[in-house]
């Protein structure tokens, strides 16, 4: 498991609330605009539950 994967698995990186998080180099990070408590999980997925789970049987009947 890479460090990055481990980090995500362990509960995600948390952004600083006013001060930089320990794991982030102070000089490299601009905290302006960062949202307090933001979890840096980058996920995009279709929100169309019936589209993905529609029952083949329903379709076959007609």
């Amino acid at each position, binding site marked *: 498991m890479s*460090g*990055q994967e481990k*980090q*995500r698995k362990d509960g995600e*990186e948390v*952004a600083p609330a006013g001060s930089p*998080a320990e*794991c*982030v*180099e102070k000089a*490299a*990070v*601009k*905290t*302006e*605009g*960062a*949202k307090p408590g*933001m*979890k*840096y*999980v*980058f*996920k*995009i*997925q*279709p*929100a*169309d*539950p*019936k*589209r*993905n*789970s*529609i*029952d*083949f*049987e*329903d*379709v*076959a*009947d*007609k």
Partner: protein
Amino acid sequence: MRVALVFPPQGHFTQPYLSLPSLAAFLRANGIVDVHTIDASIESYDHFLSRARLARSLERVQAQAGLEELELREGLDFSGMERYQRLSELALIGQDVVDNIEEAKRVLRSREDFYDYERYLWAGRTLEQGLRLFSAEFSPSRLTAHGFVTRYSVERSAEIVAALGDEKENPYIEYFREHTLPKLQQLDPDLIGISVTFPSQAIPALTLCKLIKAWKPTVHITLGGGLLAYVAEKLSKQPAIWGLIDSFVMLEGEGPLLQLAQGIERGDLDLSRIGNLIYRAASGEIAHTPRADPLDIKTLPTPDFDGLPLDLYFTPELVLPLAATRGCYWGKCVFCTLYTVIGPGYRGRSVAQTVEDMQKLSAKYKTRYFYLAIEDLPPNMAKALPQAILDAKLDVAWWADARLEHDVFDQAVCDSLAASGCKRLAFGYESASRRVLDRMCKGIDPDASMDLVRRVRQAGISVTLYAMIGFPTETVAEARETLSTILEHRELIQEVSVRVFYLDETSEIYKRRKEFDILEVYPDPKSDLQVYYDFKPGSGMTRREARDVYLEFTRELRSHFPVFQNTNMLYHELKSHYFLYLAKHGTWEALRENVLEPTKQLADPRSLDSRPRASNLVRMIELGFDRASIDQRLSTIDSATLRPRYQSDLVEDEDRKRFDVEMEREPREASMLLYDTRTAEIHCVSPAAAQLLERCDGVRTLEEVIEIVPRPVREEALRCVGELVQHGWIAQEVGR
């Protein structure tokens, strides 16, 4: 003498059904000329999916207010999650759906735009969203492209009767009162025939009957159609039904309907003299008249589609159904009852008549698209029909079901079928196991099946296979053999239609169930209209295992078959849309290459040393609960796994109450819901991903966009930007 024939909701919206045109043609050919046909199914879809009607739904649902109330909660139980899923979507897209619905219907009916796949997908999604908005008004009832279900079970006559008075959950009360009833009042028919083929039509059909009888108690209403072959006798025992209708027609309807019309016209209607009827006699007793002889279908006229609203169906071309046969020439499969619905015996029209029917319909309705609505293409027709079509110089495209007849479908026959315009053949494959096929009395050799499929493919015809899981005595290993055989040959197969075996009480296997090691059958005492039964198998897989393997099948099919992947839209609109796309592109290979799997360019955000800007075609709302998590949790609940499911996939009230108590509540967790107005897709987006998108303002460089992200997860952030670009949600400003 005026007759009105009605096809009640809900049937599929992509083409007309054959019942009304067949009956109307027969009546007209036999002297009853004043016949009017009403497809209330497509008319109601068209109305429900109209700007004005959806605006009414949006107003009534009050999605924003409902969502705000849920957002105040600390956690969501099962019912809360279901509601949250529904309302969060509608709060985001409700107004767009209202605004776009007319355009979506126009696209599906347009010869130009329908075949533009991106426009097609946008329109199809908008339509489905429209149905979800409409359904939300009548929750938990649900109307989709494929079904109509309510909390009222169509296996229980008392519940059906109760549904007829529930205006909050039965949308057809209001619809019929405002639309179909006034139309019937204007016609003022002497006889009304209502065709009920699917369980989804039961409640709407009887809702209409109730309104008609309240208006004009003296009009004779007769109910016929495929569903009644299964349930009419049982339904006739429910006393309330006889205040709604006057007779049931069993099996094929032409003869009884004509006699009813003639009797009413003469003024001496005597129901006891008409075959295939169930009615209530003056004494109050339920009477069954003797079976009438099956019709010789060679004597029937060509179906007459006049009077149907042919421009309302959601397709750019009219796809007309045509029955060249009735019944099944094989008729031995022990699980099947379909071929008995139309009456005993197998009957066929001649090849010449079939070609003549196609010629007449093609010329009259200006279409070249046909669906042979038959159980299976008989060998003589498979061999002779193509040449007859070619001889007649008919330019048609058509599809049909067929049996895996290894001796019939040689390469020459397959090639001639393709040359005649056959675009798709759907075969009853059922299983890869010889033992299981033999027990089914299927009469096919599994070793030869894939060779046949290869020949059909070689000819350029699209192949669909029907498969069945959980046939009594079938083991899990045998079912998996079916799946692995299909996957192994997936290059030859375009679609698979899979279902779990149901024990139908009118089937041969039910009568001989001991031979199939069925130990016990569990009828539900409350379900007086029950046709399918749960049972305990003595060997092979359990019912639960059958459902699990079925779900495994569907997951695998979605992973491996292009038609089922991504949006799956063509599959969902199966009835005609996939066929029309096939016909347009000529072959499956062309369709796959041009439409389903066009080469996609992978986005590498690092190559953009520009200033990315979020598309203004994307809109987001902030949510207090994680929609992705809610979607995932709700999708794991399968109503058919909870209890035997036959006519509805809604979760039963009893199960819902249990889930509300037992399921862990969904905790608060922020998320974003995104609507892409260009594609009509909706996505769950994590707040971090949404933040990246928001920072793409056309001023910041990519470096500046992600600088806010802690260094250890910047690679992830970059990958996410790539995904945002891929979705088309980020444009670039080059050279600034």
